[in-house]
C-alpha cells in the first residue's frame, strides 16, 4: 500500500461497522479523509467458474447463495434469463408470486439497512426497534416460502410453492401492521435530533456526478436520478402493477434514507395489489434440460440497485458463461467520491448509505482512486501505516 505521507487508516476486513469482509484504507489528515482505497476479494468464491461446471438447476442453487440478503433477486434474474433463452412461456401466477416475494425481500432488506445505519451512528434504540419490526417480515417470508433467508422460491419455468388464499390473507394483515410501524419511523425515527445531525449534509453527491459515475438504486434515486429497472425494463409482474418510483433531491445520506423508507411503503402497496388480483393457473411449467444456443442480458431491481446477469448458452445443459454484475459495484465509485472531504466519524455512515453488499459485488470488484500526492505540510505524525493486526 503506497502512502501519500499521511496516515493510512485501515478498516476491515474484520470491523464492527462492516458486517462483511472488505478492506478500506483511508489516507487521513487528522480527522479528515483525504482519499479512500477499497480492496475487496474477501468474499470471492469463484461462483462464475462454479456455474460453468454445473447444470442450470444446480447453478440456480449456487446463484441463490451469492448474497444472503438479495438471494431471491439473483435467483429470479437467473431464471428469467434462462427462460428467455429457452423462449419458455411462464404462467402468470408464478410471475405474481415472484413479485410478491421480491417485494417482501425489499422490505426486509431496507428495514435491515435502517437498523444497521442507525447502529453506525450509535443510535442503538432505532437499531433494536427496526430489527424487531423486521421480524414481522421475516415471519411473513417464512409463511410464504418456508425459510427466513435464502428462500429458493424459484425454479426454471416458474415457482416452487404456491401462495394459498389464507396465506395471502395473513400476508395482508402482516403488511398492514408493518405499514403503521414504518410510518412511525418516517415521522419520528428519522426526525430525531442527533440522527439528523449525523445524516444531514453528509456524503453529498450532486445529481450530475451521480449520473456521470453511473450510480444505481437508492443511491441514485436519493440524488434525484429516477433510475428504476422495474419501470424502465418491466419484468415479472411489474408491467401490470401500478407503482411510482420514490426519489428525493436531498443528495445526502438523509435523502437516501427517505428514499428507502418510501420504497418500503411502496412495496407494501405492491404486495397488497398483487395478492388481491393473483391470477389463477398453474405455478410452474416443465422446462427442457438442454438450453438452445444463445445469449441473454437479464436485469432486475434489487433493494440496492440494478443487477445484471449475462448468460451465454452452448446448447448443452451446462451454461457456457454466467456473468453477474452486482448493484453494489455501481455504487462503489460514487462512495469514493462521497468519502473524500468528510472525517473519520462519517466513514461508517457514508459506507452504510450505499448499503454495500460486498458478497454480490465482491466476485470481482475494486476501485483505485487517483492519487493526489500533494506534499503534506501538516506536522507529520510517525507514519504508522502499520496494519493494526500486525503487532501481536
Amino acid at each position, binding site marked *: 500500500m503506497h502512502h501519500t505521507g499521511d496516515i493510512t487508516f485501515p478498516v476491515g476486513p474484520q470491523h464492527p461497522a462492516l458486517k462483511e469482509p472488505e478492506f478500506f484504507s483511508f489516507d487521513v489528515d487528522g480527522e479528515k479523509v483525504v482519499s479512500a482505497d477499497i480492496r475487496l476479494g474477501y468474499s470471492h468464491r469463484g461462483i462464475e467458474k462454479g456455474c460453468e461446471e454445473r447444470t442450470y438447476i444446480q447453478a440456480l442453487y449456487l446463484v441463490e447463495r451469492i448474497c444472503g440478503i438479495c438471494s431471491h433477486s439473483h435467483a429470479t434474474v437467473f431464471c428469467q434469463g434462462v427462460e428467455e433463452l429457452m423462449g419458455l412461456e411462464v404462467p402468470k401466477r408464478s410471475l405474481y408470486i415472484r413479485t410478491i416475494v421480491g417485494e417482501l425481500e425489499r422490505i426486509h432488506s431496507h428495514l435491515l439497512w435502517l437498523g444497521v445505519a442507525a447502529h453506525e451512528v*450509535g443510535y442503538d434504540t432505532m437499531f433494536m426497534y427496526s430489527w424487531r419490526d423486521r421480524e414481522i417480515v421475516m415471519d411473513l417470508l417464512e409463511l410464504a416460502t418456508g425459510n427466513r433467508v435464502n428462500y429458493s422460491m424459484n425454479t426454471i419455468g416458474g415457482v416452487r410453492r404456491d401462495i394459498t388464499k389464507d396465506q395471502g390473507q395473513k400476508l395482508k394483515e402482516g403488511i398492514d401492521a408493518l405499514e403503521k410501524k414504518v410510518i412511525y419511523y418516517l415521522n419520528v425515527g428519522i426526525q430525531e435530533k442527533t440522527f439528523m*445531525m449525523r445524516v444531514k449534509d453528509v456524503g453529498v453527491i450532486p445529481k450530475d456526478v451521480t449520473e456521470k459515475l453511473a450510480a444505481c438504486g437508492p443511491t441514485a434515486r436519493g440524488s434525484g436520478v429516477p433510475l428504476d429497472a422495474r419501470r424502465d425494463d418491466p419484468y415479472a409482474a411489474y408491467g401490470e402493477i401500478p407503482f411510482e418510483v420514490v426519489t428525493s433531491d436531498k443528495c445526502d445520506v438523509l435523502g437516501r434514507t427517505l428514499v428507502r423508507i418510501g420504497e418500503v411503503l411502496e412495496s407494501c402497496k405492491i404486495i397488497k395489489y398483487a395478492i388481491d388480483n393473483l391470477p389463477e393457473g398453474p405455478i410452474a411449467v416443465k422446462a427442457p434440460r438442454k438450453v438452445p444456443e444463445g445469449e441473454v442480458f437479464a436485469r432486475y431491481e434489487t433493494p440496492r440497485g440494478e443487477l445484471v446477469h449475462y448468460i451465454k448458452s452452448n446448447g448443452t445443459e451446462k451454461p457456457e458463461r454466467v456473468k453477474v454484475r452486482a448493484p453494489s459495484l455501481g455504487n462503489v465509485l460514487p462512495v469514493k467520491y462521497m468519502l473524500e472531504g468528510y472525517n473519520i466519524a462519517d466513514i461508517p455512515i457514508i459506507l452504510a448509505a450505499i448499503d454495500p453488499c460486498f458478497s454480490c459485488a465482491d466476485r470481482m470488484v475494486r476501485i483505485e482512486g487517483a492519487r493526489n500526492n500533494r506534499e503534506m505540510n501538516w506536522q507529520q505524525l510517525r507514519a504508522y501505516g502499520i496494519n493494526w493486526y500486525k*503487532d501481536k
Partner: protein
Amino acid sequence: MNELYKIFYLLVFPGFAFLVIYGLLLEWADRKIVARLQNRVGPPWMQPFADFIKLFAKEDITSEKADRFMFAAAPIIALAAVLTTVIFLPLTVPALFSFEGDLVVLAYLLTVPTFAIFLGGWYSVNYFASVGAMRATLLLFSYEVPLLMSLLGPAILAGSWSVSSILAFQASHVWIAVYQPIGFIVALVALVGKLERIPFDIPEAETEIVDGPFCEYTGRKLAIFRLMFDIELVIVASLISLFYLGGFSYGNIFLSALMFFVKTFAVVAFVAVVKASFGRIRIDQMIDFCWKYLVPAAVLQYLLIAAAKIWM
C-alpha cells in the same frame, strides 16, 4: 480506635469494597434500563460481576511494540485517582478529610482518569487506540469547563470551597437545585460527557474506531479500566446529589442510606434514558454544542447568583 475507623472507612464502607459492589450494581442497572427501553430483556443482575471475574481470569496480552510499563500503569493510575475522591465526599457518614478547597482537589482527581486513558491509548501503539486517545483529550476541553463551572455555582452560593460545608448550607436551606436550575441541567449534561456516555461516547465509538483506547487491552488491565468507569459513575452521581440534591446526611442512618441509593439511582436512570434516546454525535459537533450552549448557560447562572447575592 480512630486509626481503625479510618482503615474501615477507606477499605470497606464508603471506601473500596462498597464502591466496587455498588459500581457494578449501577452498571447492571444502567444496562438493564437501556435494554428495557429498547424492549429487550437485558442482562441478569450478576452480569457485571461475571464479566469482571472472567476478565481477571483471561490471558493478559501486551503487544511487543507497546511501552510495557506505561501500558500496565495507565489503568492503575486511573483507578487510584477515582478511588481517592471518596475521602472528600460525605457519603452518609462525615467525610474523612474536609478542608477548605477540597472541591478543587476533587475536580483535579476526576480529570486524572482521562489522562490515564490517553496514556493507555497512546502507549498501545495501535492506530485505533491513538485516534481514540486523541479524541479523549479533545473531549476533555469540551465537557470539563461546563462541569467545573456548574460545580462552582453551589460553592459560591454556600460561600465556601469545602464539600461538607456546601452540604451543611443545604441542610439549613432548600436544595441548591431549586436555587440554580440552569446550573443543575448544565451539570447533568456535562456529567454525560464526563462519563463518555452516548451521545458523547466519541473516544470509544464502537463502529468507528473499535473501542478506541481500550482496543489493545485484555484481561486484568481491561477489567481495571471497566471497574474505573463504574466507580466513576458512582462518584459523579453522588457528587451531583451532594451539590444539587441536598446530599444524604439526615438524622437516622436508614433515611440517609435510603436517600443515598434513591438519588444516585435517579442520576444513573437519567444517564441511561439519555443513552437510549440519542445517537452519537461527531466530535466537532460536541465541541460546538458545549461551547455554544453549555458554557453560556453556566455563565448566565453566575450572573443570576451574583444578582441574587446583591439583593439578598
